[in-house]
């Protein structure tokens, strides 16, 4: 009992003495008021189960430490004679957990909601910083870190003793600092000042316009790396740049990247590959959905336990609003940590993303229930994070010479009942519960001068449930034992009369002694003496079993499909699964080849390994080919539809329209392969699409051309070996005519200005290109001798130089004839050709000039009247351009209309009288030509890729439906399969809703249903501006 008291005495003092309790020989610069009180006490914990690391569990072991250093640990460790010894029998000691993704002690920088007062094109930060506010490379967490007892206790109570604190604001977030969570001043808490650099594709509180989109954020970071490299290499710089100086400093540290979700992680992996950086990625929680792809990267992970809360599905209509993927994720999210373990991926765990930190351990146990091993869990909380920051020789284990960071738990920390009693960080204790609590459980006899009672105490420790027996009657007693050793108790000894007792516990005699008072006020002496142990059984919560779970589907979206078997899959297995047909034979179809003048009646088309190998009547597939035979009698077969102008399948923004040029941004960086519109468009026969940047600025971003391989990753969707394209735009959008009166700032504001934007950028790109070609001509010797430094790599001018060098091709959003003509002149003056005018609604007015320039046209069938510059549009445009010899396409620019491009093409038969064969080319061969893909797709020809559509009727008819959509000789959409998938979705939805409603009835907290949806982008969609804010159409 005395021992216990001293413990408390000590912890009470700890705040006073901390400043002195550093290393043995350490000195401090701080003056002391009064006599210094240096204790340097040695502590020894014996008889404990010590988990020195995830691999070693020592039973009845001893831990000896002094100040902040572990002196000895082991089953036979010698206890120094001057040690303060504690018996921790039955208790477990673990190394303190380490959280690498913490904001502990960092002042929060929540900006006020942005008030938009017109464009802010430049940084508003004063000083010699870089151009972009979102690059906060100079931010150093250790300079702002402040100890916070409340936050520290919250973390220590769930096992964390050391954290890497950093601000989570901006694209580059500066450095984080490693601190322990002791109640000490900041000087002592910091283990290491600058430990890791932090990054994200999110500009955070920056008020500067750029970047407004994800693609812009990626481009900004990429360019910053190149700028910093140049800055480092160049000695006679024309500028001093705090941000780049700091950025270069960060490059010596591990890089931690906010991953947000599985696809962002893949995005980061690609960037890392390009820049030769091994990132540590803070996972989003959904990585299990693409784990095999992530396993192929060299990423390391910090994994959160932010499992989604159960959703309220009481109202059946409300429940329907919950996205299918969200329902499935609710069930499968707890398997996420296990997925990392199963795939041997290096990962640690974090509390980040948990609204209530206190839930960490219960979530951890849930993760274990869902397949994570205890060993991996412990490793991910100790040795792995220590390794990630190269501190594995000081942190993350209970070993000789390591920092004294550990906690004491009542039992294994993975047990439901486990309680953390004390947490020692850097040798300083935080005591949450008495370690050596007396065990009262048992049968007692209460002996008073007047009367005796039998008493039973049940339950562990010093807070038992107490029952008093009055002959045959049982009454519950109030019992309160305080840690200072004083006990009070009361019970009814008659129907209404209550007696009250006060006393102390004599542990050697197992007896409480003291005085009591009867209801009438009379005092009496008593003793309450232990008689026999309580025989009732101890109840322990059994470990929860893993429930049967739904399957992971690819993509993780409605109409995704599970793999045949669902565990331990490698990346290529998805492909193999999808590539189930070695050969396909389509029989007796009306074949629209796009190669001749007529439709081939009742022809067969034979496809082997994705290529068209034969087109003829009555083909018989060789017996060993195992060809999938499709009976297309009475049906039509066409090449797959190619949408030259699409904005589906993009993540967080289609426009980086904050500057007149954003040539550096790449839509290929932000492909979202889970957009349901991919599947919907497959159902309309679309097989390829060009994902374009928007039209908010004269020079937009680089396009991505994809094949609609539903289920593949972003990278696997990209059309192989496609040329690079870039979006340009003219007219009202780029001069911001319809953006309101605030937008009168950015150049250009008129068509006159647009021309000069091009003139300016191409002039500079030409000079840039010259600089580089001169530099690359230099021999290494010359470079050495003349001390030449490579020019700064400018990704924007690089893209424009590619245009001049005919390695990148323009698709230009255009409406009015004057500006169309202007751009052709600009191109001519810089020696290249415009590849495609898209929209081109007044193309018919300059068809002859377009023909002469050799530019292609990609237009709407009949859209018009949505703004002033389209008032002269005519639906005969496509037909007229075609007749004038301009290669012409019909595009969608719209997720819905893209499902009906065949019908849109048909309108050029109605308006302008094209032949049906020519009309179909508008959405197949012609877009293939303008995308330079007609050697691969666009017609049905031997040797070309089998991107094909089987239609129920003439494909130009409104009554025609795509029955099968084939890409690379594989069936990606099948109307019969679709029916089956609908049924699967219905069944799976019902199962999950059933589980959710059961949760609610169990009393689990549920949250209001909500759903996320892919935003539908058009050319002029600006991220940050809501279209549907009002709720009315």
């Amino acid at each position, binding site marked *: 009992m005395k021992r216990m008291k001293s413990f408390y005495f000590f912890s009470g003092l700890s705040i006073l003495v901390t400043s002195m309790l550093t290393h043995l020989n350490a000195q401090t610069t701080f003056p002391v008021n009064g006599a210094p009180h240096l204790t340097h006490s040695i502590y020894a914990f014996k008889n404990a189960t010590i988990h020195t690391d995830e691999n070693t569990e020592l039973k009845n072991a001893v831990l000896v430490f002094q100040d902040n250093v572990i002196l000895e640990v082991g089953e036979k460790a010698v206890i120094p004679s001057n040690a303060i010894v504690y018996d921790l029998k039955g208790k477990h000691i673990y190394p303190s957990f380490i959280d690498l993704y913490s904001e502990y002690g960092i002042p929060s920088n929540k900006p006020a909601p942005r008030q938009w007062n017109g464009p802010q094109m430049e940084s508003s930060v004063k000083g010699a910083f870089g151009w972009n506010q979102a690059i906060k490379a100079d931010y150093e967490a250790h300079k702002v870190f402040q100890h916070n007892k409340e936050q520290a206790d919250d973390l220590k109570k769930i096992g964390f003793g050391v954290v890497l604190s950093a601000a989570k604001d901006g694209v580059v977030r500066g450095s984080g600092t490693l601190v322990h969570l002791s109640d000490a001043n900041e000087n002592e808490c910091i283990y290491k000042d600058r430990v890791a650099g932090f990054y994200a594709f999110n500009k955070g509180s920056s008020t500067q316009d750029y970047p407004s989109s994800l693609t812009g954020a990626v481009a900004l970071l990429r360019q910053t790396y190149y700028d910093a490299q140049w800055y480092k290499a160049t000695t006679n710089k024309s500028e001093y740049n705090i941000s780049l100086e700091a950025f270069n400093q960060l490059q010596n540290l591990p890089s931690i990247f906010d991953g947000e979700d599985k696809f962002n992680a893949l995005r980061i992996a690609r960037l890392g590959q390009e820049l030769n950086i091994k990132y540590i990625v803070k996972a989003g929680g959904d990585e299990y959905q693409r784990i095999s792809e992530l396993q192929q990267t060299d990423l390391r992970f910090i994994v959160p336990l932010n499992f989604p809360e159960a959703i309220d599905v009481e109202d059946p209509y409300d429940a329907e609003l919950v*996205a299918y*993927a969200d329902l499935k994720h609710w069930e499968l999210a707890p398997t996420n940590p296990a997925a990392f373990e199963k795939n041997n991926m290096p990962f640690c765990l974090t509390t980040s993303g948990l609204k209530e930190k206190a839930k960490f351990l219960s979530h951890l146990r849930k993760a274990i229930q869902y397949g994570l091993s205890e060993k991996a869990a412990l490793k991910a909380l100790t040795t792995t994070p220590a390794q990630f920051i190269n501190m594995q020789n000081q942190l993350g284990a209970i070993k000789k010479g390591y920092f004294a960071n550990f906690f004491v738990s009542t039992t294994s920390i993975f047990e439901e009942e486990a309680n953390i009693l004390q947490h020692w960080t850097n040798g300083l204790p935080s005591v949450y519960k008495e370690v050596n609590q007396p065990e009262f459980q048992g049968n007692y006899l209460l002996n008073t001068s007047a009367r005796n009672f039998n008493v039973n105490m049940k339950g562990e420790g010093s807070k038992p449930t107490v029952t008093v027996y009055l002959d045959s009657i049982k009454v519950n007693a109030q019992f309160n034992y305080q840690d200072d050793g004083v006990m009070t108790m009361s019970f009814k000894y008659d129907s209404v009369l209550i007696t009250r007792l006060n006393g102390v516990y004599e542990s050697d005699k197992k007896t409480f002694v003291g005085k009591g008072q009867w209801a009438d006020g009379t005092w009496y002496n008593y003793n309450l003496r232990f008689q026999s142990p309580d025989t009732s059984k101890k109840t322990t919560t059994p470990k929860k079993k893993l429930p049967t779970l739904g399957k992971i589907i690819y993509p993780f979206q409605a109409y995704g499909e599970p793999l045949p078997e669902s565990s331990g899959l490698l990346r290529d297995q998805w492909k193999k699964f999808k590539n189930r047909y070695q050969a396909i034979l389509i029989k007796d179809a009306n074949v629209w080849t796009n190669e001749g003048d007529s439709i081939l009646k009742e022809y067969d088309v034979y496809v082997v390994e994705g290529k068209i190998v034969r087109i003829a009547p009555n083909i018989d597939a060789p017996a060993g080919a195992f060809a999938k035979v499709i009976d297309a009698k009475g049906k039509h077969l066409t090449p797959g539809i190619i949408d030259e102008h699409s904005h589906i399948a993009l993540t967080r923004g289609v426009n980086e329209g904050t500057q007149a040029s954003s040539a550096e941004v790449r839509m290929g960086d932000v492909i979202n392969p889970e957009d349901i519109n991919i599947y919907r468009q497959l159902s309309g026969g679309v097989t390829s699409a060009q994902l374009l940047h928007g039209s908010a600025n004269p020079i937009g971003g680089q396009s991505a051309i994809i094949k609609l391989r539903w289920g593949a990753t972003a990278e696997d969707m990209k059309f192989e070996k496609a040329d690079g394209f870039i979006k340009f735009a003219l007219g009202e959008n780029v001069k911001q*005519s319809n953006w309101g009166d605030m937008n009168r700032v950015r150049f250009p504001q008129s068509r006159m200005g647009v021309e000069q934007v091009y003139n300016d950028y191409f002039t500079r790109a030409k000079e840039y290109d010259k600089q580089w070609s001169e530099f690359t001509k230099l021999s290494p010797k010359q470079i050495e001798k003349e001390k030449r430094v490579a020019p700064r790599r400018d990704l924007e001018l690089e893209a424009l130089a590619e245009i001049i060098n005919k390695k990148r091709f323009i698709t230009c959003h255009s409406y009015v004839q004057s500006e169309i003509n202007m751009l052709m002149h600009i191109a001519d003056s810089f020696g290249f050709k415009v590849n495609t005018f898209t929209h081109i609604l007044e193309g018919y007015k300059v068809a002859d000039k377009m023909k002469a320039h050799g530019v292609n046209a990609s237009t709407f069938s009949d859209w018009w009247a949505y*703004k002033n510059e389209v008032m002269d*549009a005519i639906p005969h445009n496509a037909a007229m351009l075609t007749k004038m010899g301009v290669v012409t396409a019909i595009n969608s620019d719209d997720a*819905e209309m893209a499902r009906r491009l065949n019908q849109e093409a*048909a309108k050029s038969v109605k308006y302008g009288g094209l032949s049906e064969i020519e009309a179909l080319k508008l959405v197949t061969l012609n877009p293939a030509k303008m995308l330079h893909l007609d050697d691969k797709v666009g017609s049905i020809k031997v040797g070309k890729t089998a991107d094909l559509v089987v239609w129920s009727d003439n494909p130009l*008819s409104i009554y025609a439906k795509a029955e099968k959509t084939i890409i690379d000789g594989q069936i990606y959409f099948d109307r019969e399969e679709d029916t089956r998938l609908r049924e699967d979705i219905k069944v799976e939805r019902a199962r999950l809703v059933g589980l959710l409603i059961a949760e609610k009835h169990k009393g689990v907290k549920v949250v209001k249903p*909500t759903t996320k949806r892919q935003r539908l982008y058009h050319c002029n969609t600006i991220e940050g501006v809501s279209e549907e804010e009002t709720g009315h159409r």
Partner: protein
Amino acid sequence: MSKLLKFYSLFSLSLLGSFLQAQKTKTHIAFINGVVHVGNGTVYETGIVTLQGQTLEMVMDMKGLRLNPPAYDTVIDLQGQHVYPALINTNSILGLHDADAVRATLDFQEVGEFNPHVRSLIAYNTDNKITPTVKTNGVLYTQVTPRGNLIAGTSSILSLEGWNWEDAVLKADDGIHLNFPVEKYMGWDEEKGMNLKKNKNYTEQLNKLHQFFSQAQAYCLQATPNEKNIRFEAMRGVFSGTQRLYITAFKAHEMLAAIQFVKQYSIKAPVICGARDALKIAEVLKTSKIPVILSRLHDLPDLESDDIDAVFKLPAQLSKDSILFCLSAYGDMESMQSRNLPFIAGTAAAYGLGKEAALTAITLNAARILGIDKQLGSLEAGKLASLVISQGDILDMRSSQVVMAYLNGKPVTLSNQQTELYEKYKAKYGIK
């Protein structure tokens, strides 16, 4: 409003005007050998349609019919071309604006929460740039509809021909348009992207609506109130049943709430517009006999897990459930999309509704829902001689080629600014 004016507004100015005109030149025309689509489901593969003046005189199969050509001023042999009733565009801002982005051309929305007194009729511009292109595809009538706020205003039904709205009007002030408050909606924010949001003002908006309707109802009980309230005056027809109440509601929740609402105020002729979730509440619609005007079918399903053709097949499903509905172009860019009304019906036909029923959904059912089926909607003797002739199936862009149209018995100009530009540039390039 004077008594005389009120009379006119109830019984259409234009009818009277064209009646007087017709007296002078009562032409007698016969269209023979056409595939006649009556609009009510009946088709005469070789049919005849005759008209006298502005009225249809005879529509029937030609089998066994002996024609007396001299009895007609003109006999037109259609040689297998298709004859349809004039298509009717419902719930549309067509005629109330030109370019969407040019504010100066926009005339479909007023300020204020309750604007039943605001009339679209007088803002309808017969020289509007878009209407001629719609007419070219066989759409000859449109319900000119105001937008916005809780009560947007009063619509009117006009033909797409006329020197001025006075000539063009078929039924003035046919109904009041109410936008029922939405409980939840898809909204965008920086943190979550597109996500389902709760309308924070839902209860408040609902309360306001109740207050307005209860006050208007009480007001309309008085024939001559001491003090006139022109908003309430404009509501009389809704309570008496001479005007329809068009309620825009998309989701099941709002539609159910709207139906409760109209019951509470004993609204005699309610119509639900939008009605995307109509199937979910089919039973309620059926028992309460409320018809719906569906928004444009060329739209994506609401949810990712919905059937990919959820919207396309909705008309077929409603038809199976015997719910009275019509199709519209209502949605983004609805004015210019109005010319695709036949193809919206074509889509419904392709997804299970069938061609004739799809035609009914843009002709006879539209007329029924608007309350003009005595005059329009089908090719039946006694109705107005407004018809369209197409070379092929008008619902399929592959074959739709409108070659002739008659409105109130008079031929309609099918050219428009776009066809003129087309001709001009064809001439420039010397191409066919």
